[in-house]
């Protein structure tokens, strides 16, 4: 098996939608650190697609949050629950409907929206269940993706997204601009947005969407209901 196939096998085993994103100083994922900084301490948080609970643990230990998760993969759930984290085995595309309105201060969807069957419905549910929603996703408008398609004429595949088009959990990719349109469509407002470059660091300067859309490999949005 080639190294690439090995990585793919491992990814499938863990059912992660993305390869491990860049990690910061204490071995924490930078996108998760960024998300946790958007969350007010002591909040009630639901992490949709929580994996084995890395973000839940971060929120509980560093922000004193009551953080709970939903995760599709049994392996992720079992690993998290065995560490004492409250995670439910479930499907975001279905199970979000059961939660009452305003049950949480924040509902988080990190690197998962592109794997949902109904991204718009999921986003609507998040904004119903939580006062705020935080969404992070890989940006398909990233320049390397565009270049890859332009030069190779094939579906882009990057370090973070090494899957092949016919064998990927990621079925609904979007660009930052596409996502901004969806936010508008579901009647939400953007409270904060950050693009992360290829090394996982925030694109510092406040630039127009079109530029972020080019430079950001990932994006993190903090949303709230309008009005």
């Amino acid at each position, binding site marked *: 098996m080639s190294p690439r196939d090995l990585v793919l096998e491992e990814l499938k085993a863990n059912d992660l939608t993305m390869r491990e994103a860049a990690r910061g100083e204490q071995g924490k994922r930078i996108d998760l650190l960024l998300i946790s900084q958007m969350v007010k301490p002591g909040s009630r948080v639901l992490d949709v697609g929580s994996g084995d609970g890395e973000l839940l643990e971060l929120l509980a230990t560093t922000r004193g949050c009551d953080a709970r998760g939903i995760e599709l993969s*049994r392996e992720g759930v*079992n690993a998290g629950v065995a560490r004492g984290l*409250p*995670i*439910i085995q479930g499907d975001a595309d279905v*199970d979000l409907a059961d939660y009452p309105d305003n049950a949480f201060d924040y509902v988080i969807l990190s690197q998962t929206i592109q794997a949902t069957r109904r991204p718009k419905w999921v986003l609507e549910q998040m904004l119903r269940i939580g006062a705020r929603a935080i969404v992070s996703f890989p940006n398909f408008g990233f320049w390397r993706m565009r270049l890859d398609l332009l030069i190779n004429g094939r579906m882009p595949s990057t370090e973070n997204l090494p899957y092949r088009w016919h064998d990927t959990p990621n079925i609904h990719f979007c660009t930052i601009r596409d996502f901004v349109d969806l936010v508008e469509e579901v009647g939400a407002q953007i409270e904060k947005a950050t693009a992360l470059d290829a090394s996982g660091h925030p694109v510092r300067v406040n630039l127009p969407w079109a530029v972020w859309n080019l430079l950001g490999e990932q994006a993190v949005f903090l949303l709230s209901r309008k009005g």
Partner: protein
Amino acid sequence: MLERTIVEAARGEADQPHSPVVRFGADKPLKLDAGGVLSPFQIAYQTYGTLNAARSNAILICHALSGDQHAANVHPVTGKPGWWETLIGPGKPIDTDRYFVIASNVLGGCLGTTGPSSTNPETGQPYGLDLPVVTIRDMVRAQAMLIDHLGIDRLLAVVGGSMGGMQVLQWAASYPERVFAVMPIATAARHSAQNIAFHEVGRQAVMADPDWRGGRYLAEGTSPRRGLSVARMAAHITYMSDSSLHRKFGRRLQDRDGHTFSFDADFQVESYLRHQGEAFVDRFDANSYLYVTRAMDYFDLAGDYGGVLANAFKGAKTRFCLVSFTSDWLFTTADSRAIVHALNAAGAQVSFTEIETDKGHDSFLLDEPEFFAITRGFIDAAARAVGVN
């Protein structure tokens, strides 16, 4: 001869069990759902580990239909290891070096808690069918009295599978402030029509046995062995799965080279079931089987809360961890998921996972490493939250 001894030993457990017993006299009657009270009555229980000074490390174990209080010790009648010794003990997922574990025989049982084979103080004869029909809620009420008696205000956790899981759910609904964390395993918030149907087959088998004598077999010196054995055989099939039966037995023959063209136990699976039936009859009282299955049939937690299960858990601070098993067709993942949905609607803190196994409903009693890891993680996290060392 040996068999006779086991039967006699089992019979002796009803009034004078090899377990500590709490007797509740006229001053402490047990209110029953069927109306009226049961008084006096007694509860037989086992404990493992030590209650800490803060009385904060107690875990109650609830047993299933055919279980008893001997969860983690050698059974006084059969000599077999406790039914949950894989889970409970020093260094085990429910670690008795850290936790004080209590397991009691259910109301209606036959191992020392008042049940149909206990002596009715009014007549000096076994209760038989004179014992009022009991419910899961009655069982839990009795357990709460035991916990009071032990001087424990709040349990760290209540854990149980199958019918034990029903009791766990009832605990969370009836005494939310008295239990910090609960683990309902392979269970449901109500007994399904299919499960009631299976139970009815079992009860009819018992009652069709002429030796049942209208429930008065103990007084008349008979025993509905064949009826109870058939009931157990039928039930045992529901605890396994098609694939586990196939893996264990296939169509293999029992100590023979070909079919005998008779109704003898040609197949291994037949021989196995007959053995299961026989072994069960030696240690279990037939009327207890009727009472305890009936209690499960009547269980419908939402029914006590206006038909809305979420209302049973409204405002609950209790932590929940639900576990189901993929091949369990008696208490399915869908049953667990229905509870999870209600808990989500109630805003409760929930963990839920489905363990992949082909061993059917009985998986919760078997060696399932993932289940053990989850149990350990959940219980230890609850202990950390409460401040148990």
